[in-house]
């Protein structure tokens, strides 16, 4: 049942080649079919988009320092474009591809024990579709931008005079297909490329999460695609399906949109939950508690995600019966989420916790996700949601889930797999400090917004009544703190590329297959078929001072084999 072979280190000597140095030149990257390189390119692209989206977020927060105009030149129209861009970039270009396409691409095949994803060419195609989608977003900026909000609600989106609406709709359409193809790739990879011995219930929980995510991507995204095409057609030739003045129904758009976009929330959060399962277990050096419950709760969340879209529309005038059903089913999502949180918590119990940077991110995630999840109760409850809908309470809630959880999970995962991806160790002190700064900044920014929303401050407001200003100022200061934390993170990671010490194959003591190959991994991942055991059984591992990493100890392995855990 051991997972790490004592004979492993010979790899370093016999195969100095790794995926970064395997071939050289621009084209060797641009035309690569290696999932690791594609993952790294996705990661770079996503982080650049994150920077751009973050700049818009800071502009929005700065503008809200005072009622009325704060930044010279930023009128209501400009502000509307800012928050629309912030939302659209963060959702479609950053969070949705961040974990599945970037980290997932890098980690999934290695974790699974496969040489690549099932369709490497399609994988590269997905990346270029992502680039095309991003390019369309830029084109739309050149053509006058768009001020529809990231939700593109009709009839505003079909009548607004900003010139960039159609290009950005095409952009999101293309990004949708990028996401669909990634999802298809991962589902087939998990089904067909598991090596012998990698049974479903031996898969690391991150793979369960990615698998559940991929199913949502495949099944929900096409509906968004066709909906956006209908909006494009509506805008260009006025067919009237969403146009109330022609007998159409604008609320139908909302149903279509949320049929995708609610599952999309789980496309964002599920993989982050998978990462946290890995992080908590590996950095607490303790077998994950309740593996099956966590794995199946991912599937449960994927299924529920398709049945709750109507809770975005409690005040839109849909029938009370539908509101009731959607409210009830929305509550049911609380169950698998609660199971995950409690199981992570119990994994810490009697663990061997190392407070590494990834562990700090995992702990931040648990706190922030708990707040985000619990405030979801206010919003799923029908009568309180009427008061809170479309206020800053909602803004705070979904930032706790989408940023505080999904993005923090992504950055935690990035720190976790950074040594594997780059072969370098970053400064733990800097990384931890940055994590704590981000955590503090995040809470100052967004917890304040719960107050704002409960007090009645509507979202997407350029101007506001003076009584809300105190909260807005605190929130803006928090966003600056958070931004400085992210800059520190960027410095910490980038500087490690130049001055970081060489990473061991297994710096954290992980048990899943990616820690069996060198850091960075060789071109085709595994020189030999890896043997698959219980990836959460860490008993055979021993800290090795010379390599500054964990190695497999045959004596410990033998002892572990004598005392099976189950």
């Amino acid at each position: 049942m051991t997972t790490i072979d004592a004979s492993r280190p010979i790899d370093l000597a016999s195969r100095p080649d790794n995926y970064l140095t395997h071939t050289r030149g621009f084209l060797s990257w641009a035309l690569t079919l290696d999932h690791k390189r594609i993952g790294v390119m996705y990661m770079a692209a996503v982080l650049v988009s994150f920077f751009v989206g973050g700049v818009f977020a800071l502009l929005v927060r700065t503008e809200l320092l005072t009622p009325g105009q704060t930044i010279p030149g930023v009128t209501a129209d400009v502000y509307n474009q800012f928050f629309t861009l912030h939302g659209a970039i963060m959702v479609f270009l950053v969070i949705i591809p961040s974990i599945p396409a970037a980290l997932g691409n890098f980690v999934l095949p290695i974790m699974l024990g496969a040489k690549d994803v099932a369709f490497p060419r399609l994988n590269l195609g997905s990346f270029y579709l992502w680039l095309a989608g991003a390019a369309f977003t830029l084109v739309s900026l050149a053509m006058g931008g768009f001020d529809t909000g990231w939700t593109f609600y009709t009839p505003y989106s079909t009548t607004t005079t900003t010139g960039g609406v159609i290009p950005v709709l095409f952009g999101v359409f293309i990004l949708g297909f990028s996401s669909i193809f990634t999802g298809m790739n991962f589902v087939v990879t998990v089904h067909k490329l598991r090596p012998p011995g990698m049974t479903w219930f031996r898969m690391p929980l991150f793979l369960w999460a990615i698998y559940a995510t991929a199913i949502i991507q495949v099944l929900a995204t096409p509906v968004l695609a066709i909906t956006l095409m209908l909006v494009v057609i509506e805008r260009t030739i006025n067919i009237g399906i969403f146009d109330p003045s022609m007998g159409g129904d604008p609320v139908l758009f909302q149903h279509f949109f949320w049929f995708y976009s609610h599952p999309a929330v789980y496309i964002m959060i599920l993989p982050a939950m998978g990462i946290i399962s890995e992080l908590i277990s590996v950095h607490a050096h303790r077998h994950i508690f309740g593996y099956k419950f966590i794995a199946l709760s991912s599937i449960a969340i994927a299924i529920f995600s398709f049945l709750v879209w109507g809770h975005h529309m409690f005040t839109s005038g849909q029938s009370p019966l539908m509101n009731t059903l959607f409210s009830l089913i929305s509550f049911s999502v609380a169950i698998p989420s609660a199971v995950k949180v409690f199981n992570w918590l119990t994994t810490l119990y009697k663990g061997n916790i190392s407070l590494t940077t990834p562990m700090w991110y995992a702990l931040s995630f648990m706190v922030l996700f708990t707040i985000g999840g619990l405030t979801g109760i206010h919003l799923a409850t029908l009568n309180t949601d009427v008061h809170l809908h479309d206020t800053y309470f909602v803004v705070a809630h979904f930032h706790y889930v989408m940023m505080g959880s999904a993005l923090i999970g992504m950055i935690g995962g990035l720190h976790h797999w950074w040594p594997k991806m780059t072969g370098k160790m970053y400064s733990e002190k800097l990384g931890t400090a940055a994590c704590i700064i981000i955590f503090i900044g995040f809470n100052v920014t967004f917890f304040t917004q719960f107050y704002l929303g409960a007090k009645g401050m509507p979202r997407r407001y350029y101007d506001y009544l003076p009584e809300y200003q105190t909260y807005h100022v605190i929130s803006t200061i928090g966003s600056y703190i958070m931004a400085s934390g992210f800059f520190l993170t960027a410095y910490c990671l980038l500087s490690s590329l130049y001055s970081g010490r060489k990473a061991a194959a297994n710096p954290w003591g992980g048990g899943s297959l990616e820690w069996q190959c060198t850091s960075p991994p060789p071109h085709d991942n595994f020189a030999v078929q890896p043997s698959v055991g219980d990836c959460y059984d860490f008993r055979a591992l021993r800290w090795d001072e010379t390599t500054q990493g964990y190695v497999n100890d045959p004596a410990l392995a033998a002892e572990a084999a004598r005392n099976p855990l189950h």
Partner: protein
Amino acid sequence: MTRRLRPRLHEIRSTDRTKDLAVSTLHTSQATAHEAHGHDAHGHGDHAKYPFLQHHFDTPAHQFDSAKLGMWLFLATEVLFFGGLFVAYAVLRSRFPEVFSYASHYLDTLMGGVNTCVLILSSLTMALAVRFAQTNRTKAMVWCLVLTFMGAVGFMVIKYFEYSHKIHEHLVWGKSFYVPPPDQAGAEEAKVISTAPAPAPVALTVANPAAPSVASLVSTPPVEASAIKPAAAAPGGLASVREQATAEGLPVADNDPAFAHPSMHLADPKMPANTHLFFAIYYCMTGLHGIHVLAGMVMLAWLIWRGARGDFNSNYFTPVDVGGLYWHIVDLVWIFLFPLFYLIH
């Protein structure tokens, strides 16, 4: 279809799996034995034997199964892609049942029926092509692919005639639906009608309960005032144009030539309001389907080219097989579209 071939593929797979199992047994029992049974040792033979076999698959069957699963997933996305439009269709039809049963009569059932047959036949030839590919009858396979391609061409030609006829009659989406065809007699009256102010959206029928008062800054909005768009920008007819013409006091005699042409929907006093929505969803759905047929034609042309080059044989027919799956789903969508639009009574 693939039954006869299956055993062969399974043979390849099962022998290989046995090898894998043997390897993995070795792994667990004797860690040091790894190197001897590494990646290069196992599967090397298959990769040398089958040039099309990609490095991360063990056997041709493994690659084939993966491609097929991928295609099925893609078909699932296609179903949901069309599914959005089917839901839009259902919503519109439940809101305006009379529109659908009325406007359906403007569609040419014969042409639609012929097209259905053409697609079903092309599905058959596609299935035969897969079969011939599996049995190494390359020439027959190419011919079947060509026949399938011809079916697609035929479908598009018939569709072209249907579309152009309807567009000529202004049986189209949106505002143009209410513009009379230019070559009709009585164009004068028709022009008057088409430029008449917009009527009320039919969706708004709730009476205003407020009592009117002349003294008000704002006079009671009659239902008409709830026009969603500025009146002049609203489409030329949400109510029947004829009703509207009558309401405007325009001469609409029963024997008026403007309304006498049998194919002119605008002349029909029984035409329900919002009939343009039927054509909006009709063009959306059949148009999207048509785009899929075009994509299928590109795919078929590529298959014919590769088939003629001799790429496919009983060991490697994955592109033909998954291409066939795609072509069948395109046909299947039409099988649903045909009754939903043409056969409503």
